[in-house]
């Protein structure tokens, strides 16, 4: 069984950065701010590369949608073990309004073109926390989906997936081709070794535009306002449980 795997790689603000809202409340500050490969996408990449090492897959393709800087995360993906990278170039202005609905159509088109057997995405991006792209991509392709995966096993043309759900763990079995979204505990990603960073230079990186793929990225949403959450007010101390109940009653909570 030699699968072709497509992995979504989003360039998002690094998790350790202190986010600042722009003064015009139109979004967060991204200029000059450290970005990195979305941590869940890193986990997705790691899973794909491990499948290749187990000889269950023979090609891993990394895809990123975004402006020129998105190539940074594609280079990281190549250094982590992807065989080739696709950059779907979306100019900076239009990228601000790019939504999972658009990305899912782009990924679906590429998956069909490249005759991919498995799409592995991060469960969500840490900038918008949408948690939609994986689900939408599966729907566009009419493929089965296994989201919030914490364990993935492949046998013949079937995938057994353990999912982390609200009630605990759920194991499902789906037929390939399918979409899997990676959750935190699926694996621990590797560091890009220095020899691989050098090898990544020679790997192919192909550019597309959404138009080439026949996808319309006209925004369907308008961002009205982005602001910080209200500052946390200090709590108060009470002397006894009775006083606590009194206070709660006064606040109108039953």
């Amino acid at each position, binding site marked *: 069984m030699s699968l072709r795997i497509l992995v979504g790689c989003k360039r998002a603000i690094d998790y*350790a950065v202190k986010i600042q809202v722009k003064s015009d409340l139109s979004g967060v500050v991204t200029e*000059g701010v450290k970005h990195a490969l979305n941590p869940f996408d890193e986990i997705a990449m790691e899973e794909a590369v491990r499948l290749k090492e187990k000889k269950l897959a023979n090609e891993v393709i990394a895809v990123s949608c975004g402006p020129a800087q998105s190539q940074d995360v594609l*280079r990281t993906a190549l250094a982590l073990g992807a065989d080739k990278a696709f950059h779907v170039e979306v100019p900076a202005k239009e990228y601000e309004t790019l939504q999972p609905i658009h990305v899912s159509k782009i990924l679906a088109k590429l998956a069909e073109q490249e005759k991919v057997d498995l799409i592995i995405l991060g469960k969500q991006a840490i900038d918008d926390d949408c948690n939609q792209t994986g689900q939408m991509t599966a729907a566009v392709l009419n493929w089965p989906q296994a989201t919030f995966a914490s364990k993935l096993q492949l046998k013949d043309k079937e995938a057994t997936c353990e999912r982390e759900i609200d009630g605990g763990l759920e194991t499902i079995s789906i037929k390939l081709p399918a979409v899997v979204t990676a959750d935190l505990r699926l694996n621990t990603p590797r*560091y*890009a070794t*220095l020899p691989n*960073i050098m090898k990544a230079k020679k790997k192919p990186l192909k550019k597309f535009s959404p138009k080439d793929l026949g996808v319309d990225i006209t925004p369907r949403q308008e961002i009205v306002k982005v602001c910080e959450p209200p500052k946390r007010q200090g709590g108060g101390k009470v002397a006894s449980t009775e006083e606590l109940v009194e206070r709660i009653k006064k606040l109108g909570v039953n």
Partner: protein
Amino acid sequence: MFAIRNIGTKTFRLCRNLAQKNVANLSTSTDTINRSLYNFSDEEVQLKETVGRLAREKIEPKVREMEQQGDVLPEIRQLMFDNGLMGIEIPEEYGGSGLNFFSSIIAIEEFAKVDSVIGGLVDLQNTVVNTLLLHNGSKELLDKYCPRLAKDMIGSFCLSESSSGSDAFAMRTSASKNGDYYTINGNKLWISNSKHAGVFFVMANVNPSLGYKGITCFVVDRDTPGLTIGKNEDKLGLLASSTCAVHFDDVKVHEKNILGKIGQGYKYAISILNEGRIGIGAQMIGLAQGCFDKTIAYTRERQQFGQRIFDFQGMQHQISHVATQLEAARLLVYNAARLKEAGKPFIKEAAMAKYFASEVACQTTSKCIDWMGGVGYTKDYPIEKYYRDCKVGTIYEGTSNIQLNTIAKLIDAEFK
């Protein structure tokens, strides 16, 4: 007391933010041309980020433990090899990473920010041992040792002895010829990384009557009979780095294990030290920066007299002065490294870089302890370790006075 400890964990998260902001500006995926010394290639940027992450996530938590044990943990040594960090410039066909000299400098600096012992390990292996072999080794020696040095074997450079430090050519270790073998006798001292080294690059004199022109470099395997590793020096700093005596008692080495040509060892030593200097410069600026970053984060949290101690003008002037010195030191190191890469003359610049960076590191760490106050003096905080570790910087791989001599000689030559 506990409130101070709470500042500790938060400040180190904050100083990670600081470090990361600087890296964002290095990316070359922009349209403007950057001719500053902070112009890194895409691979160099990737390397810096990867190594920085590895250092913070994998090595930083183990630094105290390694210092207390007086040794680098085996899993950390393995990590360095697995990530290609011990063969940075070794060509890919030997299993090395095939990168450039500046990549070694970046890696050394990033590791030294966290632990100058690891910075030193990466420095010596890449800028001294590997370079010595790559520049002067026969095909046979390259085929035999390059793959090992890249994959799992640490190398050690043996030059100094008890009666020859700065006066390196006064060495007494001798090598007498017997047919196609040489017999080495002598004692080397101050040999870094010797505890775990698998191969030793030994400078010995085959003909003392020729003076330094008899010095020859021998490649000696650890398991050669007669080679013993002596005691580990009980040092002020760099405690996790082994610094042992290496004894040679009738150690027989075949002549094909001579590196380069007989009697040229002195040239190789000088050449390697000129380059290795830049590596030490990188170690020192990394050490100083790591110490500085942690300290500034603290000064922005700690309050006295109703304000952050960072806000006192006296503090700000001292901090700015140190930051300027550190920036200047870094630029000297980067410039010397780029000159060497470009094949341009770099010896004067390298000497200046090592001299300045090591002196600046000592000043920086000393001021950092002042700024931290009492806690800077305790082992609960990492600052005092930087202070102890940096002192050797003005001594090894050419003392500050030797660097100044070298610089003066070159200045004199410029005016001929």
